């Protein structure tokens, strides 16, 4: 089991969702985060005051998957999130020690497999 963390552009979040759905990855969480990678700073102006926006908005997907789903999940994040310009984001894959489904107490692989219906 792995936890796949994907940080993508907010405007590509819908494309990623669509790609995940096609890859049959159905269980995940998503949050809005701010961060900085190598991208150029965006300059905005408020009442004549020029401001460099050091942090850019990103969307962070957290997806716990069994081993055979790791590659499809990564592929989905890449295909949905890519624009070929700096700032597309990163994917981190980290090992998972334990997973427990709260409702039933199911563990590990059973717990990361979403119930259908």
């Amino acid at each position, binding site marked *: 089991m792995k936890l796949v963390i994907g940080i993508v552009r907010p*405007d*590509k979040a*819908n494309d990623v969702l669509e790609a995940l759905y096609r890859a049959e990855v159905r269980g995940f969480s998503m949050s809005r985060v*701010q961060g*900085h990678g190598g991208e150029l*700073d*965006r*300059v*905005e*102006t*408020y009442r004549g*005051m*020029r*401001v*460099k*926006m*050091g*942090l850019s908005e990103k969307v962070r997907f957290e997806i716990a998957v069994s081993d055979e789903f790791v590659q499809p999940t990564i592929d989905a994040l890449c295909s949905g999130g890519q*624009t070929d310009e700096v700032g597309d984001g990163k994917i981190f894959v980290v090992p998972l020690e334990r997973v427990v489904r709260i409702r039933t107490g199911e563990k590990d692989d059973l717990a990361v497999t979403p119930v259908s219906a």
Partner: protein
Amino acid sequence: MTSLMSAAATAVDTGDTAWMLVATALVMFMTIGLGIFYAGLVRAKNSLNTFMMCIAALAVATIMWALVGYSLAFDGDAKILGGLGHAFLSGVGFEPRDGTTIPHLVFFAFQGTFCIITTALVSGAVVERMRFGPFLIFAALWSVLVYAVLAHWAFGGGWLAQQGTLDFAGGVPVEMGSGFAALAAALVVGARKDYGRQALLPHNAVYCLLGAGMLWFGWFGFNGGSGFNTGNASVLAFTNTLLTPACTLLTWFIIDLLRNRQITAIGAATAIIVGCVGITPAGGFVSPIWAMVLGVIVALPCYFVVAWRPRTRVDETLDVLAAHGVAGLTGIVFIGFFAQKGWNGVADGLFYGDAGQLGSQLVAALAAPVYAFGMTYVLLRVLGALMPLRGTDKEEAIGMDIIHHGEEAYVTGEGAILVISEPSHDERKPVKQPA
């Protein structure tokens, strides 16, 4: 409208003028209400740009109105177009405007606020994708080529008014003008890139209710001021502006319940506007009870178009056609059936024995949409040939606020760094302190 005024009036009446000064400010406030309403209906990343399109109308439509628009609409009673006698505000002063008891300047300003909000209304068809620069040019030209012409036909003594069309406060130029122009604008500019593929949802329903409420408030000046005095017709229109939207609201609630088992807030905001639009042309011509009936009737076609339009490929984004075009048309035709001489002192509708009035109303209900649609279509096609009307897909994905204004509506400011690049910022000159 002209027929309501006594031709003998020559002196300025202080009471009438006081009310018209207030009414003018009320209608100006409607454009701000519309901006909030529209901003709530779009996604957060486009909300500033959407509001700014309404603010832009306050700039360009006002200026064009002062330069030529007012003159083309209200100078003389030629059939198609007014003259240039009042261009650059020449001859617009303190003396009463012909046929009214208010100073010409107040009459000009009051009519100007109508031109502003109508121009702002059309933006609802092209938000979230049209570039801001081309929109400014479009708004400036539209306010003259479409609004001023239709205003002349219905208000300025043009051919619609001559053949007897009754339009109290702007069913022809404001409502049908903006509604059918919006349809043309949506067709020329094209759908948003994700339209029909993703759910593009309103980002703040509270803004929608707030904006709709501000519009209803301002509409008392819009309808109540369209008699240019404090006489019976103005009083009737004022009160009808309270009654009709109330009935539209309740009708909308009931249709919502029947279709979805829930009464929606954005539905309510839409209903307020539909009701106000419906009573706009009819305000001073129908009895209060018929105004309430109109409130019920006008909800039906508008609800249908609001529900049906998103299933088509036409991305007329904020449903200006349904809420203004269709509702305005319903109000115009309603006059033909239920106008009552006992209340308006001018004309009866079919129901009270004059079938001819219905004919006059139907002519307007056909001519105004055709002209507004056709002229807007040609105008945007020509503009589109000269410059791109919309940005790239990537710009659309990032959002109009950052792309066109370099600002965001909901900026957090975390991690923002002050840029001190211009010399004017570097030179820290000592500021003179007050003694």
